[in-house]
């Protein structure tokens, strides 16, 4: 008997909830300004959830699991999944940021690869990513060795190297822009600002990028190096291995998984470089490609931003962002799978 009442109550609740929620959504779609529609939707959803809870079924446990996951799932869906799907959709329209008038299919994707500025951005972003990854990791690993050696005041060094990472990229960028444009120019009288030359400006971003990020990566290496078991090191010492051998044959293989993490982090971060790029050069100076001129240091993220914001081509910006995501996903997944094979199991 109780089963039947429960079933009836649950069905009534589910129907009432569905009706309320659908009415609210309908009101929203038809552009009603009635203020109760928000509350209506919430009540509808709550009734639906209660109805779901009361369904008499053997899978009650699964329903409970779902109910507990629901708040998080819905948040994740609204803030991550929905924008992502909408983004892909908008990339196939002529969206202006307000409305779109027609569906253009893959036209944006085709157009995109015909643009000299985009292709150039793509190439230099790859170059930057590779160079920055190497520079950051070498610097960070060297600093980590310094900070785990028996040098005096290593705690101070550790903190000092980490500080640049605590300062926001934009602030850092403007500070360094001042250094490149003013300080260095007056130190070497008669010289031109580094940021006025296409290659040197690229190097400038590389320097600042390394300076900012090496401290952070160093911390991860330090943790890794401290985790190398003492007995293994002592054993190698007894066997007569010198410092270099210990480093290359014991320490480095032992912290291979740290390398994976660090390389992955720097790879992704360098590829996504935006704030330093915006603050230090904002794309300048210009580089001559035949009869055309392109922004010499406009990396992909900045190119996407400029497409959407300064050119007011939101659909095209969105298209570039989707491709950006795909490239990033491919690169990082490949990198992780390669590095994983080389890790030593403890």
């Amino acid at each position, binding site marked *: 008997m109780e089963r039947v009442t429960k079933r009836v109550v649950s069905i009534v609740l589910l129907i009432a909830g569905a009706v309320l929620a659908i009415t609210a959504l309908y009101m929203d779609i038809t552009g009603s300004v009635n*203020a109760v529609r*928000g*509350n209506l939707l*919430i009540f509808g*959803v*709550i009734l639906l*959830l*209660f109805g779901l*809870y009361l369904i008499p079924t053997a899978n009650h446990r699964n329903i409970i699991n779902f*109910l507990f996951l629901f*708040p998080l799932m819905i948040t994740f869906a609204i803030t991550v999944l929905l924008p992502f799907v909408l983004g892909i959709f908008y990339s196939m329209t002529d969206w*202006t*940021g*307000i409305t779109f008038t027609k569906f253009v299919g893959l036209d944006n994707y085709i*157009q995109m690869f015909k*643009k*000299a*500025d985009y292709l150039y951005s793509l190439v230099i972003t790859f170059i930057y990513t590779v160079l920055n990854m190497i520079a950051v990791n070498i610097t960070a690993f060297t600093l980590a060795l310094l900070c785990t050696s028996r040098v005096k005041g290593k705690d101070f060094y550790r903190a000092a190297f980490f500080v640049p990472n605590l300062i926001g990229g934009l602030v850092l960028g403007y500070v360094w822009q001042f250094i490149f*444009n003013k300080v260095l*120019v007056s130190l070497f009288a008669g010289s*031109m*600002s580094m*940021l*006025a030359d296409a290659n040197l400006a690229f190097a400038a971003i590389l320097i600042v990028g390394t300076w900012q990020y090496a401290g952070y990566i160093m911390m991860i290496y330090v943790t890794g190096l401290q985790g190398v078991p003492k007995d293994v090191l002592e054993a190698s010492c007894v066997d007569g291995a010198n410092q270099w051998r210990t480093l290359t044959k014991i320490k480095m293989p032992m912290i291979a998984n740290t390398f994976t993490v660090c390389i992955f982090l720097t790879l992704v971060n360098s590829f996504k470089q935006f704030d330093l790029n915006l603050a230090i*050069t*904002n*794309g*300048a*100076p*210009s580089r*001559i490609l035949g*009869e*055309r*001129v*392109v*922004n010499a240091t406009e990396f992909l993220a900045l190119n996407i931003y*400029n497409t959407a*914001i*300064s*050119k*007011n081509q939101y659909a095209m910006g969105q298209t570039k962002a989707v491709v950006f995501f795909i490239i990033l996903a491919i690169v990082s997944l490949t990198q992780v799978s390669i590095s994983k094979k080389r890790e030593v199991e403890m």
Partner: protein
Amino acid sequence: MTKKWLAALLTGSMILGCVTGCGNSTNNATVSGDTANAGQASAAGESSGSTQTAAGKDAIRIVNGKIEIDEALKAYAKLYQEKTGQEVVIESMGGGVDINGALKGYLASGNMPDIFVFGGEGDYQTWKDHMVDLDGEKWAADTDFGFKDENGKTVGFPYAVEGYGITYNKDILDKAGIDPKTLTNAAAYKEAFETIDRMKEELGLVAVCSVAAESGQMYWSTGNHIFGWYLSAGLDRNDHSLINQLKAGELAEERLGEFAAFFELLCQYSDPNTLISGTYDDQLAQWAQGKTAFITQGNWIDPSLSTYGVTFDCGIAPLAFMSQDTTGVLADCPSWWAVYREGKNIDAAKAFLNELALSEDGQKCLVTECGAISPYKSCTIEPELPLARCLKGFVDAGNTYSWQWTKMPEGIAMNATGLVFSLYAKGEISKEQFVTMFKTAVADYVAQ
């Protein structure tokens, strides 16, 4: 069983609390009347209080794009409320904020202001479906600077006129024996630059001109402002021939050649560091400290001059790049205000604009407090700052050219033409290369 129900009740109330919490924050302007939950209602009442007047009339909300005049506008809004009981909320954006992006966000979330700023042709195309026709307003007949749509109907409310050419330091010109009134063609400039260059040490100058042509941050100065002279100089305010030609991807080669020669002259007599890597602040500081005689900025530098303790007299001369005389300067509205078509307070917004444009208090706010020039013919209040005064002379005499550059395709200066300027300024390309590259850059940009 009771335990189970209790658990269900608790979970339910938790979810309810969660969800209604979110619900209210999105609807707070409308929930205030709902007294079901006293605590929430009072919180909502507080936050919506700023958009409701005591009398129950809705406040007008304005999104202003010039952060510099924020305080002056707010002061006037207060005065207006005292006079009419109509509350006006000023929301200022600026200093690098992407106003269009913010407005698009407002539109998507149903939070559009009653009056919003737009910056010219490109923005007009984006927003035209949301603008009210303001043609019948009283102020529209009193100004030449209203933004007109394709059919010649006024849709944009002008609130300030800005102008530029080459701004000079009058004291230095006097000492060098140059009359700024004679600076009306390229040859006169060449002679003036040469004269001042010879007397550089005597006058304590580091260079003759302050020009900044770096492409990352100063593209707006070269690609928009200076290039604007190519598009408008010597032409009637309603002459759109050159801008229409540019929109079709073409340029008048001879005129561009003259323009290029003049820009080269400017670069030649500029301080190289400021020219190739200087920021706006560097450029302004150099000129304001009396280290150069000319600067390629307009009357918007007026309010900044006091921070540098400027005591010298200054004025604006035409950026006369042609061999024939050009005597006027480029003066126009940098941006306009539009009334939001789907807004609830259209009439109140229109009334406010009329009052701001035509009443004495309103004009005082625009001219004296904001330090600008009034676009309205009936305005009798004189500007106080030197460049504004000088500019007003040109405007009153009708000796101005329009800002056709605001009709260029969006982002062209930053992404295309500014780059060519920076190469030219660095001397990496010759005048002929500048002309060809410029044409390619424009054609490519228009084609996309």
